[in-house]
């Protein structure tokens, strides 16, 4: 393939949307904010940890922080690496691969990456040894046994309890204060980023898969299937979602994965409606008719030919969905239905702000709430920006 051919490719729909999207500075700020949040979440153990990065014990150099990384940490790293690979692959595709083949190649890449990620996480969770390191490195340094230690930026662990420094307002040692068991608020905030972002990501992943499959089938077949599906959708939509979620939470054991699944299976209605509307428009177009008459399997027609053309509005609802999922997770944790207490979660931290004596420990409520607020706002703004970039009519109007 020569360069001239590549010139003739022109700009793809995705590139057009990106051009529109990146014209607005607010969108870019939000995007960068979310990228930074993800970086913090991935690198949380390196930013806030009570184990030193390097320590010199009796003349031997140790790396306690690296030794104590858990299977969860490695899973997060793996997820981050596959995520970055996927993004760079998509960028490379738009330069190197013929537009006609692009969506097919992308499908394969996404499938392979997801496969590697899932297998990797399962293997890590099963085979990675659980390590416990209860050594108090600070005491070792103080007693002169060890030296030359380099601690992370926030030298506290999120599960640390120290009743001597409980409920202290922000100070030099604890930048954002401490909570009622003496854990450092900043450290818990940093580790809580993981919970919030992963809930947003996984829950929306689940809900969008359900919504896309459901909506695609409804929109493609129409008629009776569509009628029954729409009645089902109406039922789902008229149930107060939050009540449904807490009902499920009441009956099922509480764990992070369960919460993700619960949020995922209760919030797919918008995705399904959007995809259905798009597929209604698409199914009579020539390229779909051609795909049908070629005798392609249904899977191929729906997801390789129609979906790439109808995914745009769903992307918007996915972005809003992430904001919604983060909000629901923090609301659940706030009510005490979220992850178990030693694991830091923004919503749960927020709820400890008014102590049992009625005293207001403002730093316990203010900072986690601010974190939720900024994250939710960033995703919402991103969704609005995306919608404006995708819908040319709205773009002109507002």
């Amino acid at each position: 393939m020569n360069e001239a051919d590549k010139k003739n490719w022109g700009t793809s729909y995705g590139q057009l949307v990106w051009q529109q999207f990146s014209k607005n500075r607010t969108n870019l700020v939000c995007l960068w904010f979310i990228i930074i949040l993800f970086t913090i979440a991935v690198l949380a153990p390196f930013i806030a940890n009570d184990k030193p990065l390097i320590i010199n014990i009796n003349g031997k150099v140790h790396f306690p922080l690296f030794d104590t990384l858990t299977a969860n940490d490695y899973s997060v790293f793996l997820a981050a690496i596959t995520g970055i690979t996927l993004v760079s692959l998509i960028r490379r595709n738009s330069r190197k691969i013929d537009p006609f083949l692009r969506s097919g190649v992308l499908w394969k890449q996404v499938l392979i990456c997801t496969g590697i990620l899932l297998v990797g996480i399962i293997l890590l969770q099963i085979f990675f040894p659980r390590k416990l390191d209860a050594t108090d490195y600070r005491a070792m340094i103080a007693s002169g046994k060890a030296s030359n230690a380099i601690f992370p930026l926030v030298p506290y662990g999120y599960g640390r309890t120290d009743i001597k420094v409980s409920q202290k307002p922000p100070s030099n040692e604890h930048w954002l204060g401490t909570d009622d068991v003496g854990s450092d608020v900043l450290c818990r905030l940093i580790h809580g980023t993981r919970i919030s972002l992963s809930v947003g990501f996984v829950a929306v992943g689940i809900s969008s898969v359900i919504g896309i499959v459901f909506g695609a089938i409804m929109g493609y077949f129409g008629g009776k299937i569509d009628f029954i599906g729409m009645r089902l959708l109406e039922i789902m939509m008229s149930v107060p979602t939050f009540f449904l979620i807490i009902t499920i939470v009441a009956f099922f054991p509480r764990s992070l994965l369960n919460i993700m699944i619960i949020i995922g299976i209760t919030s797919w209605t918008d995705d399904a409606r959007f995809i259905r509307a798009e597929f209604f428009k698409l199914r009579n177009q020539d390229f779909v008719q051609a795909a049908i008459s070629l005798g392609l399997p249904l899977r191929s027609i729906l997801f390789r030919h129609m979906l790439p053309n109808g995914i745009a509005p769903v992307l918007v609802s996915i972005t809003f969905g992430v904001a919604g999922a983060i909000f629901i997770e923090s609301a659940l944790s706030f009510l005490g239905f979220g992850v178990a207490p030693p694991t830091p979660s923004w919503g749960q931290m927020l709820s400890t702000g008014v102590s049992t004596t009625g005293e207001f420990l403002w730093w316990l409520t203010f900072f986690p709430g601010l974190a939720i607020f900024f994250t939710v706002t960033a995703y919402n703004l991103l969704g609005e920006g995306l919608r404006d970039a995708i819908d040319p009519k709205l773009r002109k109007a507002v």
Partner: protein
Amino acid sequence: MIPTILGITIMVFAISRAAPGDPVSLSMGPGGQMDAQRAADVRKVRMALYGLDKPIPVQYAIWLKRVVKLDFGDSIKHHRPVIDLIKERLPVTITLNLISIVIIYLISIPLGIFTAVRQGKFSDKVSSIILFMLWSLPSMWVGQMMIGYFCGPTFKNWFPPAGLSSNFADSLPFFPWLGDRLWHLVLPVICLSYSGFAYLTKQVRAGMLDNLRSDYIRTARAKGLDNWTVTFRHAFRNSVIPIITIMASLLPAMIGGSVIIESIFSIPGMGRLAFEAITTRDYNVVMAVATTAGFLDIVGLLLADIAYAIADPRISFESME
């Protein structure tokens, strides 16, 4: 309407049956002194007693029959019929939500019109930024900050932190009693309404803008009608209809939100009931509350439909000739 109600009950029932652990094993506890044979016998008798030995659809039919008669069983914690608890708590939640909805509509319609008319001006830009922030503010944060700042000994002690009325409220004459009630409602209502208010204002503004740009408005202006008539008689009348339908999407969010608000402010409503029931694993109450919330929602939708028909003479629910 009927399928939706059926769907809600099926969903609630399915959740309760899909959950791990059945009521009998829960009530029998782990093992104990009974030998295996006897335990199995007791289990069988109890399963038959609760009707758990029948197939799931039959169980559902039995449950539904009781629900239709408003019999949700007894609460394990309160030792009272669940329906009595709901009768006590429901009016509180409905009042709270009604007040909030009225306030939302009263403020956001004028504000939406105002910002639409002044589109692009400074006041419009400022208000849209503020509204966007209000929309994404987590309500538990706002509630907790308000309780901490306005209701505690630490900062200002202006508002009561919990409940619907003061302890001595019953001994007060009518107007002070009403004042006391309202004073207790201020913060919860603010918490419950600000995000819906932001959302609705945005929608009103968008709808008004759409209409103000259309041809018939230009015609009306060309006819020499004054600004007031054009805005209210022409544009507003046409943008009212979508606003009514938004109530349908606002309601589930508000009913769900009242769980958070009621448990922050310790208001004895349905949301608080749900919260307590879940923390004490009072399953009958959980199921009853979920079903009732679904009903409430459907009643709201029905009201929205009726309002829709009143507002728009073109819509009728009679079948086509």
